[in-house]
């Protein structure tokens, strides 16, 4: 190129560039606007759009809850009473669902209709129960075969995952009321313990499951997993720094003798009532039966449970009703040894005192019936024959100690003794829902008979365990334990220790409680109770080789036939078992309650039933006290 040509080009270019000079600003502005668009979009994605962030988190890092295994429950010999059974829940995370996916095969595996599928997925998103980003249960309790099929094809359905959970299994069909059941947590329970329970968790509802929930449940763990684009887990997040292990629940070792419990339940079949057996030296409960009972496997968490539960609830025999702790019964003649003890301690009576019984007791102007028996020349004989007149008279002496017109002082003192015997208040067992029973308090009578118009004859039926006094079966068994121990007891409890754990059971179960009654007064009572079995009202309970001490009771009640009652302990010296048997509407105490108790005692102490008594065992097991009106 020539120099002058250069010059000319320059001139022309100068002009051209001057004409369109302004266009550089348009270009600059276009660049700026484009950059602003990009900045705006990054701002939107990274700062404002929360859903993107949530989604990014859930699709990259999967939080996996590690469920602890629930504590097991053993009997006193280390036999398993409850074990754990794995079940599978199909979970779904709404945000991760692919709206276009073909779910017909999934529906086929799960055996559900398309409508059901949609219903399972579309939750009420306004409700705080559900979040689109949090997995919720799509279908619960998937059978193992379905689980195997599902696992193969689950990768085709993003958003779905399987959650392993553990439910309860029972090696035997016994102890339903005692063990209790687990059920799904409700909203209130979740709200009260947000960091413990989440939707779909199980919680112990009743029985030991409910009472020891805190120990049994363990602690959930959390695992943070990194997932790649195909949803494959590639490894722990932050090398597992945030992970926490699940801590298994504590295993409970109970004082229950599974063999005895099973035996008691077989004896109680087709009967209404309850049995509580206690080891007097420790207060450990050996067996606790409420009849009718049910097979605990029926209430295992599965698809049929809801229906079965409803059926049982509408059953007129109330199999779900736990009679051992919830039912309050009049003690009837079981009360007599206690009245006798209080009379002797109050020094208004002594053991050698007799009382003329002509088959009835004249109370003010009407007779209270007694039955045909030899002359109650002392406490022992009176107990042996369960003489009403004797104890009515004794009771009046206690009440009228301050004079006929001052029954209040006498009754208050009487009630103070009863409270010391563990009556009137819940025993404080390790079992939820225990009732307290009723005491015949002066306040109660003041309400019934205003202006102090009550005297010892008014309330006299209390003296033979009728009227305003009501006890629960554990309270009766505990009275037997007090008599066995001659004056003290350990608060009855079911769990004796935690397996492989230094935690001890509550101090209140390890501290003896002494009854404010002089130990010498127990001897005539215990002797009398021995006579009851050996040659008295409970002769059917006589067990060769074991000195059983006991007392029958026959409680009148407004619901029909009398209740058949027995409590006692054995052997007489160094007793191993104290027991209370309460049979609703079964008649005389010596007919059913006493033989059943004696069979229990023999089974526990000897391990087997004497062949001579097999007929009795058969008779008791066969007895059907329900279908007879």
């Amino acid at each position, binding site marked *: 190129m020539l120099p002058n040509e250069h010059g000319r080009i320059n001139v022309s270019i100068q002009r*051209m560039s001057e004409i369109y000079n302004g266009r*550089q600003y348009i270009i600059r502005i276009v660049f700026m606007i484009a950059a602003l668009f990009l900045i705006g979009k990054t701002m939107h994605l990274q700062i404002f759009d929360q859903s993107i962030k949530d989604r990014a988190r859930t699709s990259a890092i999967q939080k996996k809850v590690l469920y602890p295994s629930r504590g097991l429950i053993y009997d006193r010999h280390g036999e398993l009473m409850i074990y754990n059974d794995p079940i599978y829940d199909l979970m779904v995370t709404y945000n991760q669902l692919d709206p276009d996916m073909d779910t017909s095969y999934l529906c086929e595996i799960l055996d559900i209709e398309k409508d059901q599928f949609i219903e399972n997925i579309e939750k009420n998103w306004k409700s705080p129960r559900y979040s689109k980003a949090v997995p919720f249960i799509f279908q619960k309790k998937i059978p193992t075969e379905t689980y195997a099929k599902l696992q193969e094809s689950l990768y085709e359905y993003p958003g779905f995952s399987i959650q392993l959970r553990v439910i309860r299994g029972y090696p035997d069909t016994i102890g339903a009321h005692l063990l209790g059941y687990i059920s799904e947590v409700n909203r209130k329970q979740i709200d009260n313990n947000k960091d413990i329970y989440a939707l779909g968790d199980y919680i112990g509802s009743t029985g030991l499951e409910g009472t020891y929930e805190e120990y049994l449940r363990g602690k959930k763990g959390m695992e943070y997993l990194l997932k*790649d684009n195909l949803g494959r887990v590639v490894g722990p997040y932050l090398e597992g720094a945030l992970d926490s292990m699940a801590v298994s629940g504590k295993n409970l070792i109970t004082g229950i003798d599974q063999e005895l419990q099973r035996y008691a339940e077989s004896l109680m079949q087709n009967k209404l009532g309850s049995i509580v057996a206690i080891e007097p030296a420790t207060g450990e409960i050996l067996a606790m039966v409420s009849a009718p009972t049910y097979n605990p496997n029926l209430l295992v968490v599965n698809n049929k449970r809801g229906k079965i539960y409803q059926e049982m609830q509408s059953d007129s025999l109330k199999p779900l009703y736990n009679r051992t702790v919830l039912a309050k019964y009049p003690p009837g003649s079981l009360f007599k040894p206690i009245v006798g003890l209080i009379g002797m301690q109050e020094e208004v009576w002594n053991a050698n005192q007799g009382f003329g019984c002509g088959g009835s007791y004249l109370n003010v102007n009407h007779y209270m019936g007694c039955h045909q028996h030899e002359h109650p020349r002392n406490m022992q004989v009176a107990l042996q024959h369960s003489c009403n007149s004797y104890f009515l008279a004794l009771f009046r002496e206690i009440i009228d100690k301050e004079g006929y017109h001052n029954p209040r002082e006498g009754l208050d003192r009487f009630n103070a003794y009863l409270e010391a015997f563990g009556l009137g208040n819940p025993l404080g067992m390790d079992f939820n829902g225990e009732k307290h029973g009723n005491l015949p308090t002066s306040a109660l009578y003041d309400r019934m008979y205003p202006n102090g118009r009550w005297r010892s004859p008014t309330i006299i039926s209390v003296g033979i365990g009728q009227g305003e006094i009501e006890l629960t079966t554990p309270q009766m068994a505990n009275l037997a334990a007090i008599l066995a121990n001659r004056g003290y007891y350990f608060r009855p409890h079911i769990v004796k220790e935690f397996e492989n754990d230094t935690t001890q059971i509550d101090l209140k179960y390890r501290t003896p409680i002494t009854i404010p009654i002089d130990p010498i007064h127990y001897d005539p009572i215990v002797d009398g109770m021995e006579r009851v079995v050996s040659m008295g009202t409970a002769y059917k309970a006589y067990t060769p080789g074991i000195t059983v001490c006991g007392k029958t009771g026959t409680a009148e009640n407004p619901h029909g036939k009398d209740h058949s009652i027995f409590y006692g302990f054995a052997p007489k010296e160094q007793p191993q078992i104290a027991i209370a048997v309460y049979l609703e509407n079964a008649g005389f105490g010596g007919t059913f309650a006493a033989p059943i108790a004696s069979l229990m005692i023999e089974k526990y102490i000897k391990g087997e039933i004497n062949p001579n008594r097999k007929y009795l065992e058969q008779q008791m097991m066969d007895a059907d006290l329900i279908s007879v009106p």
Partner: protein
Amino acid sequence: MSRRRQSGIESVDWIIFSLYLSLVGVGWCMIYSVGYGDGYPSSRIDFLTQTSVGKQTIFVGLSLVIMLFTLVIDWKFWRTFAYLVYGAAMASLVGVLIIGKNIKGATSWYALPGGFSLQPSEFAKFATCLAIAAFLSTYSTNLRFSRSQFISIGIILFPPALILLQPDAGSALIFFSFFILLFREGMPVFPYIIAFALGSIFILGLSFEPLSVILGLFFIGIFILVLNLKNYKWYGMGISLIWILSSIIAFQNGFVLYTFVANIIAVLGLSILQWRSRLERIAVLVTGGVLIGSTLIFTTNYAFNNFLRPHQQDRINVWLNPEKCDPQGSLYNVLQSKLAIGSGGIQGKGFLEGTMTKLNYVPEQVTDFIFCTVGEEQGFIGSFLVIILFLALLQRLVTVAERQRSAFARQYAYGVAGIIFIHFFINIGMTMSLMPIIGIPLPFISYGGSSLMGFTLMIGVLLKLDANRYAI
């Protein structure tokens, strides 16, 4: 002018050079971070030859050599041999179709020994930039005349025609960036407006129901006509607002046909009114615009549904109608990319701490989707800074272009600015679905030797020309 004839390295524009180095540095770090999750080999040789970041280290080294080379070569070389370079580049584009290596369905690569490969289209951009600048700077060229317009468009569109044969639509698209240069050099504005309008109609027609878009066109038409009324303008405005509102309500409630008939009558009536008020041009323009626009909307939709192949439709749908797409299918890549960027938040997860970009969530994570790593690890602060670095570079390129005394140098600088701009906007835009997914790298940052060296060559030559701007 001889008094300031400095042409050495000391007169290089240090702003552009340092922006260039920063972007390359950011890119290297991001590539390092992506590969970090798999662990790096301890042997230095393995690191350099087996890992992306190792190879990128080599590319950076080579790029610096190229940079030095461009600064040493005489500035006149590029202008003198511009057409020769262009010719060579075209030859290489033809050659690659014959002896090239096919990667992922496109024959875009020359296989080199040592597992490396070369992408001639990256160098074609540079060559075309030189050639168009050389052509525009000749005395006889004047973009006001159609002869010059046709030749320049020919120079620009010849390489993408060859590239489309590979096929590599993304790289081909880049060449349209030269229209920015043509605009600056005096190309008439009208075609740009038409192109913009067509583009908008195309996008709107595909993003929304065609009928609603056409109705919108009618409304715009009515509004323009009413604005130009001689009398009762304000009454007219009020009535037309009510008219538009009631049309929308009628349309929403299913009276589609009635709404359209009423609107056609309204447009025609208003046009006749304008015509009689001797405003023929407006009447014709508006009626014609509405008619042509409506036809175009229908045509684009028809063409979209009948002429485009499903995977091409998918690309457009992912961009404009993500709700219609399969999140696990066509939408997957861009969704994961958005998730990765979004998960960074304001501060980001921190260098080397990104999880989604390391775990194959994001496709092409070191090349086309490298911005995801920036977004995830450096958060909004990092993304903002990278965008600002690019904007600063672009603005500086315009400044540098405008200070050239030589038309060739100015036009070359605009060409470079245009190419970098289009890469920058489309690449970052596509990672956030602001743009359709087009497989082009992010300049200086993406992994890849051809791309990095191609851009280095562009910047190097520009720095050399600028350093000698007083030499002319």
